[in-house]
């Protein structure tokens, strides 16, 4: 099996799975809505699909090697308490075949902050934060050697008020590299942590600009295929908005713009307009201007790169996200064929958007899924539509 990158159809939300050459898995956000868990509902059952892709450990427990939560908004963390085990791994309910063990959490330091007006956490995000704090506390007590799979955590980015100072061993700083999932470092991938940004406490102006939206982790993964390094570059940025991308471009345009290059990018914030522009569509309509810096940051494509928008079907209306003008901008960076909306894709193909990563590069998977095959043959048609019987 080649390494694989999968984007699940979760409406306006993010959920992607990286499966490495060595079969390790990195989950990036989840949005497992109640409808998707309802067997009577037609919403794609992403949890079941995810679980089919995961391995079980020697105790029969499903697990992910790493779970990157870009930021703790509900459309990035929904389903956490239903489908994942939280708490010490030894408390994993024996014989439970459905819960997933998170071997290592990758979390932004925002979980240390107290809730404020700008910082409200949904219940599932609170559960994430509690679990993250448990793991950090355990690390402080027992160090690296005392924290095994299921107790591990990496903190992505330094916290501005020094709360991460004593966490050096589990801290990845801005512009630093993630090179191991669950501390297995075999050169299968590296992830450049581009954000959250470290902001000097004295820079009040920047704090003002970034405060609300600086919490998203932005990672540019470079993934090996068939043992060959860097066969797929994948840029993912949570809900980071235009000001962040402006900053990133300014920061890296001269010497490190390659850090922003990608074969596959997930549009930030579900293809929303506010990623690309400071102008309000509702006020200016077609007169809006795209921020040149943000566009530059988001358009460092390698040959044939593909942009994936994890969002609802994109319509020409005022409902943002997703935004049709944003889609147009992304299509101008790639092409109509190389821009894929996850839900539109799922409607047509009955499955997630998948990329195969081989020794020669990243291919968008083209294959008939079993579900699609069944629907072609009309196998499920009879039972999914109410039929009258006289």
């Amino acid at each position: 099996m080649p390494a694989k990158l999968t984007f699940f159809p979760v409406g306006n939300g993010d959920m992607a799975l990286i499966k490495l050459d060595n079969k390790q898995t990195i989950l990036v956000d989840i949005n497992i809505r109640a409808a998707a868990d309802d067997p009577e509902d037609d919403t794609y059952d992403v949890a079941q699909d995810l679980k089919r892709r995961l391995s079980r450990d020697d105790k029969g427990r499903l697990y992910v090697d790493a779970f990157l939560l870009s930021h703790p908004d509900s459309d990035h963390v929904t389903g956490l308490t239903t489908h994942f085990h939280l708490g010490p791994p030894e408390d994993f309910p024996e014989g439970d075949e459905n819960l997933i063990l998170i071997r290592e959490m990758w979390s932004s330091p925002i979980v240390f902050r107290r809730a404020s007006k700008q910082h409200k956490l949904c219940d599932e995000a609170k559960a994430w934060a509690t679990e993250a704090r448990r793991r950090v506390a355990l690390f402080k007590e027992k160090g690296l050697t005392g924290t095994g799979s299921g107790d591990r955590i990496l903190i992505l980015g330094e916290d501005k008020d020094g709360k991460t100072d004593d966490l050096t061993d589990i801290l990845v700083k801005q512009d630093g590299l993630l090179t191991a999932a669950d501390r297995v470092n075999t050169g299968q991938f590296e992830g450049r942590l581009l954000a959250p940004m470290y902001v000097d406490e004295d820079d009040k102006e920047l704090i003002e600009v970034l405060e609300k939206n600086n919490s998203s982790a932005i990672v540019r993964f470079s993934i090996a295929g068939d043992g060959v390094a860097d066969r797929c570059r994948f840029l993912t940025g949570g809900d980071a908005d235009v000001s962040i991308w402006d900053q990133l471009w300014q920061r890296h345009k001269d010497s490190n713009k390659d850090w922003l290059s990608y074969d596959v990018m997930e549009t930030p914030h579900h293809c929303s307009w506010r990623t690309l522009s400071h102008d309000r569509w509702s006020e200016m309509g077609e007169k809006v201007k795209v921020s040149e810096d943000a566009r530059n940051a988001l358009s460092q494509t390698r040959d044939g790169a593909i942009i994936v928008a994890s969002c609802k079907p994109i319509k020409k209306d005022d409902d943002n996200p997703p935004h049709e003008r944003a889609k147009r901008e992304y299509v101008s960076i790639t092409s109509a064929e190389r821009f894929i909306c996850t839900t539109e894709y799922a409607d047509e193909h009955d499955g997630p958007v998948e990329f195969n990563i081989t020794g020669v590069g990243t291919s968008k998977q083209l294959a008939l899924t079993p579900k699609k095959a069944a629907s072609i043959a009309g196998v499920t048609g009879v039972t999914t539509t109410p039929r009258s019987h006289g």
Partner: protein
Amino acid sequence: MASADMKRHAEHFLRVATEIPQCQRCGLIAVGDDVATLFLDLAVEMPTHWHAKGTAPNGVLPVERVEVLLGADYPWRCPTFTLRKGFPRNLHHLTPGSENVCPTPCLVDGNQDEYFNQHGLIELGIGAIVNQMGVWLGRAAIGTLMDPDHGWEPVMRQGLPNRLIIDADFARSQITDKSGSVWLATKFMKGKDLAGKRSYTLSAHNEFAAAVGNMSAFPFEAESEGRYSGITATVLIWPPNGAITSAVLPETVANLDDLAQRAEAFGCGVEFAKFLDRLQRRWAGKTDDATFPIAVLFGVRRPFRLIGRASTIELLPYLIEITAPQKRASLFEGPNARAAVAMEQLDRTTPALLRAVSAAPSYPPFSLVGCGSVGSKTALHLARAGAQILAVSDSNELRPHNMARHALVRPPLPWPKAFELSDELALLGQKPEAHLIDVVRGLKRADNRLLISPPGTGTLLNTTASSLVRDALSMVSPAELPARMAEIALFGRGRGGFVFHEGSNRNPSLADLQAVLSATVTPYERTLLFDPEFGLTQIQIGEGCGSMTMPMTDARLSAMTAMATEELMRLAGANADGGELVVGVAEPDSPSTSWRRLSVSKFLEIPVEGGEWTLRLSSHVAGMIREETARFPNVETGGLLIGSCSSLMKTVTVVDLIEAPEDSVRTPTLFVLGTKGMKNRIDARFEESGRSLLDVGTWHSHLAEQGPSPTDRKTAKQVAVERAPPAILLIATPATYHAIMHQDAP
């Protein structure tokens, strides 16, 4: 099929195809009474940067047009797919053929018609086969790029009409560092394949044919009048070390010139020319009416090892034909003149091939004692798993009544079983020695021991179901016969079976394991083992003659033997230091069979004072004795020894104890074994063990390191007078054991 039906099928196919994600466009090209031709434009999965360039490096395009042919027998037969003429040919999984014909991909590993129809609904079949075509194209786009980790994928030649059967390992072993060639003696048969095409099967032997020299045997000879079979040569040609062919060359060889070019490309053009020259000279002055096929086998050097092989050499055979009429300018003037075609190479049946097909590990070689039903079946199971069998020994002949269950089927002639089994095993690439020999006697002589268990034997397997043979095997010292011994036997009319695997240094021996089995049998096992109802029966095998045998069907015998052989393979593979016994019984009213395994530690070997006997004490019993003495640290204690005796082996084997009855007396200097209830308990133990375990003596403890006391010797004498079998007095001191028995002075 009427044209209207064909059209209906074609339109249905297209309707389904449009729904398939890879299918960008499709349409009907032509439709007739027996055939409909369609096209599909399929998007090919390839890396994004090749997509951007508009082609894969090998020329596969992001969208490929394929033609689909629905034949008259559609949908019973899968449609045929062909690719465009210019499609790159240097790929695996393309059917060999001329450059002028559109290439055909091999879409599935196996029968394409079965694949197409396995889904029940035709729509699912269409979806699956078109999807498979898409997957194939995706692989083709990146397929030529192989790497050392995955191995070199051999060129696909499955299902070609002409075949060369050869011991691939032998052929590879002939290849030297310099370029060269050898001729191998080869049988040929001419026939027709299922499609009615002319087909040759050539079978090369591991034996050279003389390429030169008029005095040597001529390698070509037609055997039958019809000239459809005979002897010819396979010519193995190889390039020098360093002449590595890293490219997959298209399978487009059609004639001798192509073949010469191909030889050149493989780095052995000169050798090929030499071969043609030698062939002409070999035939100089000779004539023959027959047409002879010759296999030209290139040993192509690849940059890394082949998938599933340890070698980097790929064997690629081609077929040419020669004729030698009286008036001729060359040997290539026959009906197929200068044609050359690719052949399929099949491995000759060798243990290595069978091992690979069975996914079996490699075992130390076996030798077998007993070539009856169980022995013959076990031998074939082992040989088919690629295990080597060095010798088979048996003292009987195959008789008609053996045909009920013996693995071999033979006409009613009294052939020795060992010879027949050896011949059968030879067909599986084995060369076992066969001996018509009485094993019990044979084991007593060094030269015969070497026949029964030749040097190199890892496991000597006894399948005779004879306790005499078992005892004889258990008595031979490891120095005299170093192989590890094992035994498979059935009982209870095939409803039970056991496997013994002795420990290292013949400890525990097969006989020890038999005693342990008796000590640990379950009631149901006991019924099957010892109840006469499940035992041997006199079967009439002719007028006035009968045979003692165990009535059961071949199916029953095979079922138990097969499972026992699996256990034997596990044990032989593990080669643990201790011994193990495995017992299986078929449940009374169900098809289930349950097996139990029992590891048996080494027996303590205690010389018995006053005679040539040895006491063999199971480590289980030793443990029981130590537990008992720990319970009575300040007084002597003891009990009764249960086991078996063999006057042939001069051994007393102790596998169980009966604890001292309540009327026993324990003091610091004396232990008196009581009698209360003992008779009943001994009888019960005797019955429980299927009447095979007796009371073989007593044991008691000494508190200090002191051997037998005068009292002990007196008791020994008393016991000897009172009962026939050798009776042991075993003394357990804190650190060791002493055993005595009374023997009258001679």
